């Protein structure tokens, strides 16, 4: 479990992280969202023990990270631009990782080679961007990490590679209860694999959600009544958004699904539909409630 308390970090006069709190449970995939400059990379580097925070504390399984070898042996950080020693081949990099990380699994490494189908004796720098990205995952997953921290891992990759990498991650999460934190500025890139989402804006979380809760909690409904809508109808729920097209009302409402069904059926509407909501829509409406325009924060 990753536990982050009141982290602050400044570069010079610029305060990048302002009291960030975060808890990530074992075996979950946490999506860290935010626009460029929101502080995502800084937070990830603090989590990985690269930067030292100015304030606050971090613990991974009750142990600190910074300068803490035992924690770092179980944690891999993959930056947005994966780094390899110049002129190293995949094999040489693998030898390096194998010595540094005690849990290195050579069989896994060879097995992944069959899946990825990359030449182990080729120099990594001669690979394309997508292939380099795959190499970084290949090496990282061969160290059998308990924690994988990924900075913009899908940025600029084509759909095929993206899919491949997602499968690799999901596989390890399912099999070994690996914990993943993945950052992105694009919700759509990560919504299919994350179970938790946090939105960082100007160095602070403005929203943190469990996706399963989120999807079962917010409903988009279309109702029409013969007469005017009976006003007290939604008093029991939070209405996030509401518009009228003639006699048809489009309402985004927060609350338990059965309860919503029950209340509306009782009012005897002419039409009552529950429409599917994309994750993006949910965020848009949620954020409207807190006073942010999400389009400015994401995508």
């Amino acid at each position: 479990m990753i536990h982050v308390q009141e982290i602050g970090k400044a570069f010079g006069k610029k305060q990048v992280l302002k009291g960030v709190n975060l808890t990530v449970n074992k075996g979950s995939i946490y999506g860290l969202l935010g626009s460029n400059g929101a502080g995502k990379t800084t937070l990830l580097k603090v989590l990985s023990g690269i930067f030292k925070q100015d304030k606050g504390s971090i613990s991974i399984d009750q142990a600190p990270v910074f300068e803490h070898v035992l924690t770092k042996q179980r944690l891999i950080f993959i930056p947005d631009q994966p780094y390899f020693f110049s002129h190293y081949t995949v094999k040489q990099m693998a030898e390096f990782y194998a010595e540094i990380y005690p849990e290195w699994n050579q069989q896994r490494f060879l097995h992944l080679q069959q899946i990825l189908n990359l030449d182990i004796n080729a120099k990594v720098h001669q690979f394309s961007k997508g292939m380099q990205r795959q190499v970084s995952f290949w090496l990282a997953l061969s160290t059998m990490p308990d924690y994988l921290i990924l900075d913009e891992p899908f940025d600029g990759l084509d759909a095929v590679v993206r899919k491949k990498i997602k499968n690799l991650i999901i596989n390890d999460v399912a099999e070994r209860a690996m914990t993943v934190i993945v950052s992105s500025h694009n919700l759509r890139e990560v919504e299919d694999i994350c179970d938790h989402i946090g939105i960082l804006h100007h160095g602070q979380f403005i929203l943190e959600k469990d996706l399963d809760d989120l999807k079962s909690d917010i409903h988009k409904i279309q109702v029409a009544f013969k007469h005017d809508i009976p006003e007290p109808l939604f008093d029991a729920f939070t209405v996030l958004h509401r518009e009228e097209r003639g006699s048809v009302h489009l309402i985004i409402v927060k609350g338990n699904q059965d309860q919503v069904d029950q209340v509306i059926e009782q009012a005897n509407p002419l039409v009552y539909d529950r429409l599917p909501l994309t994750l993006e829509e949910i965020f848009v409406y949620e954020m409207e409630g807190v006073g942010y325009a999400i389009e400015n924060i994401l995508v």
Partner: protein
Amino acid sequence: MRSKTSWYNHEMMKQNFRQVGWISLVYFVTILLAVVLNILMKLDIEDAYYDIYFEQPLFQFSEVIQILMLFAAPVFMAMFILRYLHQKDASDFIHSLPITRSKLFWQQIGFGLVALWLPIVLNGILLGIIYNFLDVSHFFTINHLFYWLSLTIIILSFVFSVSIVIGMITGISIIQGIFTYVFLFFPVGFTTLVIFNLNFGMIGIPESYFIDDRIAHFSPITDLGNLFMFDKATTFKLVAYIVLTVILILFALLLYRKRPVEAASQAIAFKKLKPIFIYSFTFCFTLIGGFYFGFIQQAYQWIIIGYVIFSLIGYFVSQMIVQKSWRVFTTWREYGYFIIGFTCLILVILFDLTGFENRIPKTENIESVYVIDDMYGFVEREQLYGEEQGFTTLDDIEAVQKLHQELIDQADRGNFLYADRMGLTIRYQLKNGRTFVREYYITGDVADYPLLHNLMQTETYKKYSEPIFRIDEASAYKLTFTNNYDYKQLVISDREQVVELINRYREDILNLPIQEGGFMTEAEIHLSNQGSIYLNLTPKYEGVISWLEQEGLYNQVMLTIDDIETVIFAKFTEDYYNYSDEELFERVLPEQDKMTITDDDQLEFILDHMYGEYDEEEYMAAIYLKGNNFPYVFFSDSENVPSFVYEYFN
């Protein structure tokens, strides 16, 4: 869990080897060619004439290449071994690995040091093999080899450790490289600048005492001469270098632990150092400005202009380095603080708030005192013959104090501006073991300073100023008199005669006024262990002359009227600079402007009384010696010219 506790990572070493191995290789090959093969090549030439100037001959083989490598290799090594700290992606990667900073640090430092030592050790082994199997005794001994090995390793390690500290402070490799040399040179350069600039305003600052004597030892770059050419007194220095190296490396580790990883590619890694850097950089540049304009223009208004221009340059360059941007011309605040501070400093010095200028040690605190008019020679004599005996009697000390007060009273801030000034140093040895030194400039003649003139006539002064009193006569094996460029030469190699002459010289010098210059005859005393000393011989050296006469050697040493064909006098003219001596006296000067002397009495008078060169050139004379086609020319002023010459021309 498999746990690895090895103290080093094999793979990290492999990566280091790929990154810096070439430096070791280049260094090894360079030394192999420059030293080892050089010796072998010289061995091959049967009767190779090889002059060893250095006490440490191994440094003399391709010394320029050796010195260049001695200072280039460790800096390159440090730059590449810490390269991972200066590249953002590499820095993030390495620091995300499960290795502590201490371990990383020791691995990198250890690797760098070994990679520097190895090329030298391997070459040392080769030299050892050569030493054992070939006769190289005329090149070097086994002690020389060990000194060469240890000194090279010590200097390499020291320069490397300086560069490592700089590498921790900065986040840019090129700045690490440049500033390593700046810092290596800093102690010498900064002291020179400070003293030179203080000299503008602080009367009595012993400029030459500091600059000539002491500070060369402060940096290995300026100290190389001492390290290579002599082998005395270096043990302390070598130990000091080792201790400093260890301290610097530990300091670098401390910095590394505090160093934020995000400092990669920033000019200065620590926030707190930025203002310190800006102010000190500006300060040094300001001093450089004063140095430059003080040297070139020698006028106060130019020195002030130099301060202003160079402080601006220094300030904006430092801002550019810190901000990594050209656009720094809007930040003036720190410059304002600097100018205020610098002005205060100047005022403190000009108003002598520290009481530096008027301080004269109290009589009861003085052990002994020297008045020195040739600081360089004095220091050299001290090095050669040991400490000299200064003035110790109460009368003498009080006379020096009076002279000191007089110098303070007549001193003017502008004195340093005169080109023809004469430096005069007063050095007190205090009873508490300290040395108190002041230096003043006097213009004009010593005769204008009666106190100084009297002190210079004392036995004490002569004994510490004239090397003849300090040499060990037992080691003198030869004395050569040379007259007028080998016109006459006499070599005396009988030891007893040499000692007799030395003693007579000592007596004569004590009896003569100090300022007697030389003319025509020079004596060289050859010493078996201390080189040679040179003395003049004029008719006033009565003891020496009478001995020569007694031995019937006078005519072999001194000029007599029998040697002289003729002497031509003339008033000094600027034509002297345009013609050769023969042309001037034989063709250019019209007959009526010349006085030709052939009269024996007059020639006798000239030989007996004219032996010096005088301050003002009013008359010139050409002496034609028998058998010589070219004249020997000397000068005189109207006071010292013989009366018959003076009357002839007036």
